[in-house]
């Protein structure tokens, strides 16, 4: 089993179809394969044990995933926004390497004897001949296909390992081969080092859907690219969708994207107000919310277009609420909720989210497998399943506020605060409290020119939730700290409230 089969099949069935577009560059599946073949030979000749990508999104990222697979070594895309020291520490953990980079990013690399550094343009320049087939492509399902460093919001980044069997199970289990129409195109804005960046290459290649890459996101540029490339599908992280919604509200523009059919979002918590506005702004677009983790080879639960419509049209609050869920398990995996003592919980009972299935690797290079004896992976997310299996997330287990023994999810308080017309963004975190151990604190960003007092916001929470949920301390900020893929850095927010007043 080898993920390079995905590209072989696309090139076999639709060799002439354009597989990837980035700026002026367009590569067909046959060209992608010929480029990956040639790259694989050079990777093998270099003696590298890893293929590292230190670069923004480009066709080199698509080629590198498959070239590494043909060459039989792991593909390791690295976050190019890290500092030089951080990058070099990760490169050391993925050496000897064949490293693809470009421009100024190259200057961040410390010289090493066991690095073969190649410029992106050179990497993409060579093509194998018509009949050149790579020699001895491995078929060991347990071989490592991808190694991804987790974002490390709580410490040293961990090297998550995805084996060929994990990724192939994910693709074969959730995507229909050649399901895309000739004119379909997906706009990809996630960076190559994000699991969604990798799964989009694999999913779209298997579906034979053209990928349009956008290396640097901005709302106006996204709308323009959607129109110019006749984009039919797109994936966005919540902050990107929020910026598109804000941009449209600020300019009063109506998005004219008749070809756009489907918008998928995921990678973080979507504020209810953003998705409600987005559904109004794009009335003819199908919305899908996807939930997944690096360690699960991407998506494990999906809130599909029909689920969105059912929630928006229902009179039943229980069904309406599902707009804030991440949907149901895909069918390729099982999901379970457990309590502190690993007891399995029933519907509507909150606890820890566990997942099981062939796409779930749950494995780190240094720490080993995190699966239990029955193959279940602890996601460290908290949440619950409703009576029909819709999964609601409360946040990371580490983010829960424990006030006097009561577990408080920051998400429910944030949702109430975001419903205030003056509030643009908010994060609730634990702050030390002598009486309760921990108490609720909130960092609030107000909309431009809008006003709201701490008293007013506290009263709002008190009116809708229990008094234990009322933020004891509220600070007003110009912006909240996010990482580059839109993940809120709660650790930094907590530091604001680190010492009791």
């Amino acid at each position, binding site marked *: *089993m080898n993920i390079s089969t995905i590209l072989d099949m696309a090139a076999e069935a639709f060799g002439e179809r354009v597989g990837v577009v980035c700026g002026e560059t367009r590569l067909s599946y046959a060209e992608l394969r010929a480029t990956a073949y040639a790259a694989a030979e050079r990777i093998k000749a270099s003696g590298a044990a890893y293929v590292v990508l230190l670069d923004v999104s480009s066709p080199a990222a698509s080629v590198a995933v498959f070239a590494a697979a043909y060459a039989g070594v792991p593909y390791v895309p690295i976050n190019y926004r890290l500092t030089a020291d951080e990058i070099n520490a990760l490169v050391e953990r993925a050496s000897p390497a064949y490293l693809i980079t470009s421009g100024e990013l190259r200057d961040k690399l410390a010289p090493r004897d066991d690095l073969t550094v190649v410029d992106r343009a050179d990497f993409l320049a060579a093509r194998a001949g018509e009949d050149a087939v790579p020699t001895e492509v491995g*078929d060991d399902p347990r071989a490592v296909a991808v190694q991804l460093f987790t974002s490390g919001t709580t410490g040293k980044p961990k090297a998550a390992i995805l084996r*060929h069997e994990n990724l*192939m*199970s994910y693709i074969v289990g959730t995507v229909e081969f050649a399901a895309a129409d000739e004119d379909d195109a997906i706009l990809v804005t996630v960076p190559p080092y994000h699991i969604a960046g990798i799964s989009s290459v694999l*999913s779209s290649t298997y579906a034979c*859907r053209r990928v349009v890459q956008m290396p640097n996101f901005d709302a106006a540029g996204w709308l323009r690219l959607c129109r110019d490339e006749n984009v039919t599908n797109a994936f966005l992280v919540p902050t990107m969708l929020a910026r598109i919604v804000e941009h449209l509200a600020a300019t009063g523009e109506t998005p004219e994207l008749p070809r756009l059919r489907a918008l998928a979002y995921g990678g973080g918590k979507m504020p209810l107000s953003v998705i409600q506005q987005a559904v109004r702004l794009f009335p003819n677009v199908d919305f*899908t919310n996807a939930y997944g983790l690096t360690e699960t080879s*991407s998506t494990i639960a999906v809130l599909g277009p029909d689920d969105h419509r059912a929630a928006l049209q229902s009179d039943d609050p229980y069904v309406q609420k599902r707009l804030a869920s991440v949907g149901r398990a895909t069918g390729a995996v099982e999901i379970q909720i457990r309590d502190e003592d690993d007891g399995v919980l029933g519907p509507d009972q909150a606890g820890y989210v566990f997942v099981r299935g062939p796409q779930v690797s749950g494995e780190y290079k240094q720490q080993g497998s995190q699966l239990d004896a029955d193959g279940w992976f602890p996601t460290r997310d908290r949440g619950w399943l409703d009576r029909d299996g819709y999964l609601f997330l409360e946040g990371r287990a580490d983010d829960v506020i424990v006030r006097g023994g009561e577990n408080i999810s920051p998400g429910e308080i944030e949702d109430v605060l975001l419903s205030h017309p003056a509030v643009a963004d908010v994060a609730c975190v634990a702050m030390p409290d002598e009486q309760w151990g921990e108490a609720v604190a909130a960092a609030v960003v107000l909309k431009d020119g809008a006003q709201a007092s701490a008293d007013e916001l506290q009263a709002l929470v008190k009116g809708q939730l229990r008094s234990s949920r009322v933020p004891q301390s509220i600070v007003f900020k110009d912006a909240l700290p996010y990482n580059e893929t839109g993940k809120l850095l709660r650790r930094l927010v907590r530091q604001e409230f680190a010492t009791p007043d």
Partner: protein
Amino acid sequence: MAMTALKPGARFKSAVSDAQVMVIKAPAGEHELSCAGVAMLAGADTAPDGVQADAADSGETLIGKRYVNEDESLELLCTKGGAGTLALDGTPLEIKQAKQLPSSD
């Protein structure tokens, strides 16, 4: 191919057409995979001289389709299409119905 253990990841090709498959899931023990009535070939094996497809088999194996036996203990992915019906130990395999998911990535 005589009776062989079928391991996930292993690839087989038809002896009489272009069809190729990859094993996704396999039952324990030794089995025989065939295409158009002729045993499939593993790895670098070449077709024995004079083998011929079962003339009565008008089936086609389609790229991207998954093929399963009755209890779904065997699952193959067709990675290259070609003439001939796939069979496990003489029993024809069926196409596994896809569960179409909304595109999420």
